[in-house]
Structures are given as structure tokens and as C-alpha cells.
């Protein structure tokens, strides 16, 4: 089994701490009082104004990582800082204030089902600003224009396709012009056209607004075209990181397996189990 220490690029980092918007420092995290260890000694630097991709096999805890950065979950060891602030040391009020500077695009979109697309996008503006409705109206229309849904603002979330819901959620996520946008599996379940649109939107938002982006995904081809830096997670920690070009050149078998979608390798195809023969014979004896 490949471990982090075998990965050549492990010691390097995309930026210094003061150039990073998010610094994850040797965190340990487990669900259920330690019953299921998700991360052990995981460290990352998310550079300001760049698109950082976090990739890894399904079930490795990529969404958990975003919830840790957003302080919805708390690591048992280590710390995570956002803009120099230890996010898990904050009180409830301060934490909610810091969260206004970040946003997250959920896999499901997580639009409020009892509001129109327009009201969904206006929601954070109405909650956190004292802007007059006329100005909120202008901002909402501009955000919806950016994702191509200005004409669909009167629709309810149930009337949107999966791709449209994801784009509407993206418009809501950028309504307050956050410093950090976290994308949770933005390409999952999308048709090629929707996928292309979302890839383009993430890139454009990054370039035009300078938004720092973390894209959590296992869609290798799409994310490698837009990411400035890539982390690959497996075996509870970072097993490799670098620019897309560096990773493509990597001879590390785990990185190679992941980037080329090979069924078996350092990440086993089979879930841990006794041999098939033992299992079948054992079953016969038990019967």
C-alpha cells in the first residue's frame, strides 16, 4: 500500500503560508468517536486566487474536507486557518461572520425549495446586507446573467434540470462575492454540455473576480483543464500534489492509477475481505 512518505512531491507546497487563504495543518479526523478514521496527519495549502482541485477515490472523505474547512465539522487533532484565523477556535458569532466570506456549492445544489430561483439568489443579500430591494434586484439579475439563468429567475427549484439547479446554486454562492468558493462534486451527474458550462463558469469566476476556489471531484479530465494545483487524497492523507502537468508526469503508481482510471492498483478494487474460497467454504460450513 502506497503511503504519503513514498510520494516525491509530498514535501513541496504550492505556496507559503502567508500566500495561502486556507492552511490545513496535520489534521486527524474520525467519525463516530474514532470508529471510522477519515484523515490522519493531512496537510494542505490552498493558494489565494487560484483554483485548487482535491481529487481522490469515492468515499475517501472529500466532502468531509470541505465541511472541516467550513467548520461544520471539527478535527480531533491539528488546525485549519482561513485568512490566518484558526476557524475552529472561533465562537459561534465570529464563525458565522467568517462564513460570510466563504461559500459552498453543494453537490445537490441545496436550493431552498420553497423559494424561486430569484429569491434563492437574493437570500444571502437580504440576510447579510441592508441594501435596498432595487439594488438587490440589480445584483441578483447580474449574478443570474453570469450563470445564464436570468430568464429562469421566476422558476421554482423543482422546475429546474440538475445542471440548471447547480448553476442557480452557483449564482447564490457568489451573491456576496466571497473570497473562497468550495465546489463539492460540481460535475457529478451532469451531461457533457452542463459539465462544459460549469467548467467554464468556475474558470471565469476565478479569472474575473479573483475568487479562490477549491474543487472537490473525481472527474479527472474536467478538473485538470482548469486547476492551478491538484491534491490527491487516498489512504487518509495526501498521497500526491502538484500542478496538473507535474502530476501527469508522476511515476507514482497510486497517482498513475487514479489519473488513468485503472481498476486495480495501490487502491484495491476489492473491499477488504477474506479470500473467496474461504468465504464460500465458510458459508457452506455455517449452513
Amino acid at each position, binding site marked *: 500500500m502506497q503511503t504519503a512518505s513514498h510520494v516525491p512531491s509530498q514535501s513541496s507546497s504550492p505556496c507559503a503560508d502567508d500566500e495561502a487563504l486556507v492552511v490545513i495543518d496535520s489534521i486527524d479526523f474520525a467519525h463516530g468517536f474514532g470508529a471510522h478514521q477519515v484523515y490522519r496527519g493531512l496537510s494542505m495549502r490552498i493558494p489565494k486566487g487560484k483554483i485548487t482541485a482535491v481529487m481522490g477515490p469515492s468515499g475517501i472523505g472529500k466532502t468531509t474536507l470541505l465541511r472541516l474547512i467550513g467548520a*461544520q465539522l471539527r478535527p480531533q487533532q491539528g488546525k485549519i486557518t482561513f485568512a490566518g484565523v484558526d476557524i475552529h477556535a472561533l465562537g*459561534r458569532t465570529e464563525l*458565522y461572520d467568517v462564513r*460570510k466570506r466563504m461559500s*459552498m456549492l*453543494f453537490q445537490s445544489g441545496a436550493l431552498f425549495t420553497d423559494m424561486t430561483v430569484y429569491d434563492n439568489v437574493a437570500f444571502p443579500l437580504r*440576510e447579510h446586507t441592508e441594501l435596498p430591494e432595487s439594488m438587490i434586484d440589480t445584483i441578483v439579475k447580474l449574478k443570474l446573467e453570469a450563470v445564464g439563468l436570468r430568464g429562469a429567475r421566476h422558476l421554482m427549484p423543482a422546475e429546474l434540470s440538475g445542471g440548471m439547479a447547480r448553476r442557480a446554486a452557483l449564482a447564490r454562492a457568489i451573491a456576496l462575492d466571497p473570497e473562497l468558493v468550495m465546489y463539492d462534486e460540481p460535475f457529478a451527474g451532469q451531461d457533457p454540455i452542463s459539465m462544459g458550462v460549469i467548467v467554464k463558469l468556475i474558470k471565469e469566476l476565478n479569472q474575473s473576480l479573483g475568487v479562490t476556489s477549491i474543487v472537490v471531484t473525481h472527474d479527472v479530465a474536467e478538473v485538470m483543464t482548469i486547476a492551478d494545483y491538484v491534491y490527491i487524497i487516498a489512504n487518509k492523507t495526501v498521497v500526491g500534489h502538484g500542478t496538473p502537468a507535474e502530476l501527469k508526469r508522476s511515476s507514482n503508481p497510486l497517482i498513475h492509477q487514479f489519473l488513468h482510471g485503472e481498476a486495480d492498483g495501490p487502491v484495491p478494487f476489492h473491499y477488504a475481505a477474506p479470500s473467496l474460497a474461504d468465504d464460500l467454504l465458510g458459508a457452506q460450513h455455517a449452513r
Partner: protein
Amino acid sequence: MLDRIAALGRVTLDTVAGAGAALLMLLKALIGKPNVRKSWPLLMQQMYAVGVLSLIIIVVSGLFIGMVLGLQGYNILVDFGAEQSLGPMVALSLLRELGPVVTALLFAGRAGSSLTAEIGLMKATEQLSSLEMMGVDPLRRVIAPRFWAGFYSMPLLALVFSAVGIFGGYLVGVRWLGVDEGAFWSVMQANVEWGQDIVNGIIKSLVFAFVVTWIALHKGYSCTPTSVGISRATTSTVVTASLAVLGLDFVLTALMFG
């Protein structure tokens, strides 16, 4: 034997942890600086959802229960020549017991299950998480207005239930069975006391409102975010809240009238 002790320990730990989580949820939702400008519209919206939309079931149930009380009460009292006591019998039964208790049971089934399912679905579709990540506290935005709406609505619904029930008793006793109308109302007025009967009924209602709404919200907020999890939480709300209401009713009755 050891397994049984371990299982008992697990159940105890889960129960204590669950009670602690429910208490924390409520405290975090209710304690804090109020923002009237934002809270008022949300409260009105929820008062409509849990209060106004429960009116039909409350009015219809109250009417039929009052009519049954009138009919049964008359059949018993007439044997003793005491049918003129029908008014206070119907009124006291409703104001002291049936109004608060039946309203709470109906409220748990109609509004409580709806609150649990709604919040459970919001959790399953990550709407609560997205509120958190937007810097909006879901406990203040989602839980608090629903809690206050349930707390204010149920006593009002119980009063409506009792009033309609008394009218149902009047229809059967006076209009159908021929009890003297003057006696029906005057004996009722003479025997029903403001503090002992009406206020105690309202206090019961407030306690039931607090408990039923709290249980419904906590079950939704802590449910497993799957279809089975939401279904179990909804059922659990109705069962737990109903049993809590009936148990608390005995305790409150013993304290107030015992």
C-alpha cells in the same frame, strides 16, 4: 449477561446524549439577540402553517367531542334528575382536560409530524448545511420561528377547541334533548372558575405546546437524512409527543386538582 449490561449502558448513554442534544438545540435556537424585523415575518408565516392550517381539524374535532359529551352527559345526568348540570359538566371536561389534551394530540399528529418531515427533508437536501455555510444560523432561522409558532398557536387552538366543544354540547343538550337553555348557561357560569379551570387549562396547553413542538423540531433536526430516517422520525414524533402529553397531563392534573 455482560452483553445485556453493555446494551443497557449504550441505551442509557444514547438517551442522555439525545436529551442533551435536544436541550442544546433549543437553547441555541432561543437564546440570543432577537431581530424583530427578520423574525416577525418568519413567525407569522409559521403561525399560519402550524396554527391556521390546523384550525379545521381542531374545530371539527371540538364540535364532535362536545356533541358526544352532551349526549353521554345527558344520558347519565337525567337518571339523577340533574340534567341542568350538563353545562358545567361539558365546560369543565373541555376546559380542564379534553381541550388541552386532545388539541395537543391532534397538534402532534397534524403540525408536529409536518414540522419533523419538513426539517428532516431540509436536512436531507442539505438546505440546513447551506444555511450554515452562508453564515445564517439554521437554529435561529428555521427552528426558532417554528418553535414560537407552535408555542403560541396551541393554547389558542385549545381555547378554540373548548369553545366549539361547548357549542357542540349546547346543540345536543339544549337544542336536541331539551335541557333548559337558561339553566345550561347559568349553571355553567356559576361553576366554571377563571383561575381554577380556565387558567389551569391554558397552563396545561402551554406545557404541552412547549413539549410537542420541541419534540417535533428535535426529531426532524436530528433525524438520519434518508427517506427511512425521515419516516421513522415522523412516526417517533407522533408517538413520543402523544405519550409525553398523556404522562404530563396526569402530573399536571395531580398538581392542579389533586
